[in-house]
């Protein structure tokens, strides 16, 4: 049998470190809880090594056909683990020595584990399990702070997640009913012969759950409240990490399990992409708090990412575009949030006035990340957008590429609303711009640097992402 646990080494590292960390944290004194964080970082690094080793081996399906170990999974693992490392670093200043520091670290690890499973799931039931594992820890994380806003955010997050999770469960049941299997490969044949209406309803319901995970319209209602209501470190994590696995899961589900000639899902996803980016951008326009601004920006970024999902399987560049854009988005978004975490008292864009005076290097890092989110070369998101647009035009969705371009221009406006005060004026408010510590700043510098390096070295990374998911 192919029930080889060694194929799941990165996942097992995360799980093991989470369990050991939880036990460790139960008896460690408060000022020693950093050991748990260290353990988590070590597990993530070990997971990266295991991912690199696994990537040299041929693709395979393990545990029956339920879990795929192929390029999309390797990429998901690598991106999520790097994001975990960054998240652990950028949260040091706000969580170190906290009563619940261990819980914070363990929740991040468990959520990341669920996210990786989402990316690799090759079976509807595993997809559902991964969805729950990627959701529940993050609900708890949203309420981790125990402030009234945080509790409200967690509540909203949980309720919308529960609702759309049930929808997803229904969808899985329907697809199983009409396709007579839950494995992606056989499901393709089953759905080809299934009644279109039932299969369509089932697929839409499953996609609803995944859209909740990635924060795309119409599953986006939690995004602004959770992002704005939680500490910057938590906001960074919930807007970045679940997206990675969620988008790969969507891509894999649509490419492997759903025949495009039976159901017109490309158009459905294209419309979702168009609505996500447009709505996110329009709502971001006049936001004054930085976390809310980033929340809407993340909705619009999901829109750009969904473009490639819409052309999945129809354009050669779709898969490298998706994985590369996800990677670029993850570091860039985490970098922007790292700056926010560095100045926890600066809530509004105006609070950043004169930041370049006080801390020029950090201002440059922020500018790099925000211009990166716009998609200015030579950052990673630019290369991502370039391949996304190319894939869209190639896949017959030129109108979507044009809409994305118009949206990109519109997005410049609100990103500049934040950049402009940062570089303006000689005076700054020392209370608002009270730095939290060095770790967040270091995380911001690292992310900004990686965003640029990844953009310049795109040529090395893109060819690694080409091999499509294995079909059976």
């Amino acid at each position, binding site marked *: 049998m192919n029930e080889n646990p060694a194929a799941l080494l990165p996942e097992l590292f995360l799980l093991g470190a989470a369990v050991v960390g939880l036990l460790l944290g139960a008896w460690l004194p408060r000022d020693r809880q950093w050991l748990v964080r260290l353990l988590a970082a070590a597990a993530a690094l070990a997971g990266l090594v295991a991912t690199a080793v696994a990537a040299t081996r041929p693709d395979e399906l393990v545990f029956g056909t339920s879990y795929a170990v192929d390029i999309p999974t390797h990429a998901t693992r690598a991106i999520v683990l790097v994001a975990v490392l960054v998240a652990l670093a950028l949260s040091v200043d706000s969580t170190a020595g906290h009563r619940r520091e261990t819980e914070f670290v363990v929740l991040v690890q468990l959520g990341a584990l669920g996210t990786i499973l989402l990316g690799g799931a090759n079976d509807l039931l595993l997809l559902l399990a991964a969805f729950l594992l990627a959701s529940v820890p993050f609900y708890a994380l949203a309420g981790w702070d125990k402030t009234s806003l945080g509790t409200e955010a967690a509540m909203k997050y949980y309720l919308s997640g529960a609702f759309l999770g049930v929808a997803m469960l229904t969808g899985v049941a329907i697809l199983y009913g009409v396709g007579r299997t839950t494995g992606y490969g056989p499901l393709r044949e089953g759905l080809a012969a299934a009644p279109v209406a039932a299969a369509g309803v089932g697929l839409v319901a499953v996609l609803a759950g995944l859209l909740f995970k990635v924060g795309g319209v119409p599953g986006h209602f939690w995004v602004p409240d959770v992002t704005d209501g939680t500490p910057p470190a938590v906001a960074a994590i919930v807007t970045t990490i679940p997206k990675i696995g969620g988008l790969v899961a969507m891509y894999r589900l649509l490419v492997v399990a759903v025949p495009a000639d039976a159901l017109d899902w490309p158009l459905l996803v294209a419309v979702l992409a168009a609505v996500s980016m447009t709505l996110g951008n329009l709502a971001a326009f006049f936001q004054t708090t930085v976390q809310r601004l980033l929340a809407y920006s993340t909705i619009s970024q999901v829109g750009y990412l969904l473009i490639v999902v819409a052309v999945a399987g129809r354009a050669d*560049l779709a898969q*490298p575009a998706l994985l590369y854009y996800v990677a670029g988005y993850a570091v860039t978004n985490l970098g922007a949030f790292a700056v926010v975490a560095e100045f926890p008292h600066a809530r509004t864009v105006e609070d950043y006035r004169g930041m370049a005076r006080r801390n*020029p290097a950090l201002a440059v890092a922020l500018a790099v990340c925000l*211009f990166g989110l716009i998609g*200015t*070369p*030579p950052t990673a998101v*630019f*290369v991502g957008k*370039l*391949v996304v*647009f*190319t894939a869209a*035009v*190639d896949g017959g969705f030129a109108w979507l*590429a*044009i809409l994305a*371009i*118009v949206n*990109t*221009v519109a997005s*410049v*406006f609100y990103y*500049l609303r934040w950049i*402009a005060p940062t*570089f*303006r004026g000689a005076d700054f408010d020392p209370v608002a711009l009270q730095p939290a510590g060095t770790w967040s700043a270091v995380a911001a510098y690292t992310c900004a640097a990686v965003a640029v390096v990844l953009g310049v070295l*795109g*040529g090395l990374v*893109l*060819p690694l992402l*080409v091999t499509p998911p294995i079909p059976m």
Partner: protein
Amino acid sequence: MLSVIVFLPAVVAAALLLVPATAPRRVFTGAWVAVSAVDLALVVAVWLAPGSGFRFEERVAWMPSVGISYHVGVDGISLPLVALTAVLFLACSVFALRETRRVKSYVALFLALQAVSLGLFVALDLILFFLFFDLSIVFMYFLIAGWGHGERARAAALKFFLYTFLGSLALLLGFIVLYLAAEPHTFDIVELIAADPLAGGGPAAALALLAIGVGLAVKTPTVPFHTWLPPAHTEAPATGSAILAAILLKMGTYGFVRIAMPILPDAWRQYAVVAVVVGVVSVLYGALVALAQTDVKRMIAYTSVNHMGYVILGVGAAGILAGSDEQARQLATTGAVTQMVAHGLITGALFLLTGVLYDRGRTYDMAAYSGLAARTPLFAGVFAVAAFASLGLPGFAGFIAEFQIFTGALASAPVATALAVAGILVTAALFLRALQRVFLGPERLPDAPGTPRPFADLHPSETAAIVGLLALATVIGILPRFLLDVIEPASRALVELVAR
């Protein structure tokens, strides 16, 4: 060699960022002047090196899986613009010796801008071109917002960014269409020219040309995409306006001769008449609106619309085969390239001169000044020379360029050319009127807050910067062969590509 020219300013900018801002400002300005001088020397060395076609080519695979490479090289079309860039930045560095506001970031931004401008003119890959195109927008945004005139500058900077960024993304869309049309897929300009992927026209070619044309037209700018230009120019610092007018606008027109014409020859021939019409409208509209201005800097900004209109007319005429021989089309193309250089030198000088005016009187309003010639004879003299050069008086570079454009375009577009010539008359009128208002008559100075200050004549550094530019414009006007010898072979090749 070209990579050294391009990245030297960027490397020095990065090094300067490590120097503490409290260092004497001479460290920064001095470094800038030195780097610009070295860069210019290197460009001169490239200029003097023999060869034809694309020279000093360097090509390194960058993102081979999507057909992107780091590919640079110069030919007779790009070399004059590279040289223009080096000259202009040297002039601005000398002019900026007296700058006192946040000198460190100012110099670093200009050096970065210098690197991307040079990079754009040597780029032989569409994505490389786009990269420099976009970065020029980012750096210029910070220059206008950071060193412009207060709150209005930030609005102007935002408008500038949004407009030109939209243009750049339209450009990107066009590039993607070209990329997908080419087999094998590539973004390499030389390969695309050879492949002529959209030969025969058709909707895809029209779409690509539309996207690229709009993108470049915004940057050029032509009517009706010019509305970002007057506020950006008026609110930017003098050196920023000079670079914006002299270099950044050329990125648009350069794109036409480097990308649109050779890669899309069929579509270009098909729609060349659109370029001719847009060019003539820009010429006349720019001149007439400039005539109506009371703000001297705004007036010069609108004359840019007018002058870039001649360039568009020239490249449009080069695409109309009927009724013209190859020599005429070549003349129009050469004239268009020459006009880019001439306009860069002359308008750069004019914008630096308005900077002098603002520095002394804190306003650009022509009505606030009168009779300056008596108090500042040198300033008045240099301004007069620059104005005459700009209105196309023989003996200056602008005349050579416009003469060639008109002669080359007359056969294929007689009506348009005749109308465009009238533009010269209007510019002559508006410059003479401005000279008369500001420099002649009874002496009157604006009583801005902080006056009376001495309304000083040109400082040596200002004189050196401005006179240097005008001297070069005069040399080209009297002895144009050294420039035309470089441009003509390349424009012959270009005209052959368009006619194929």
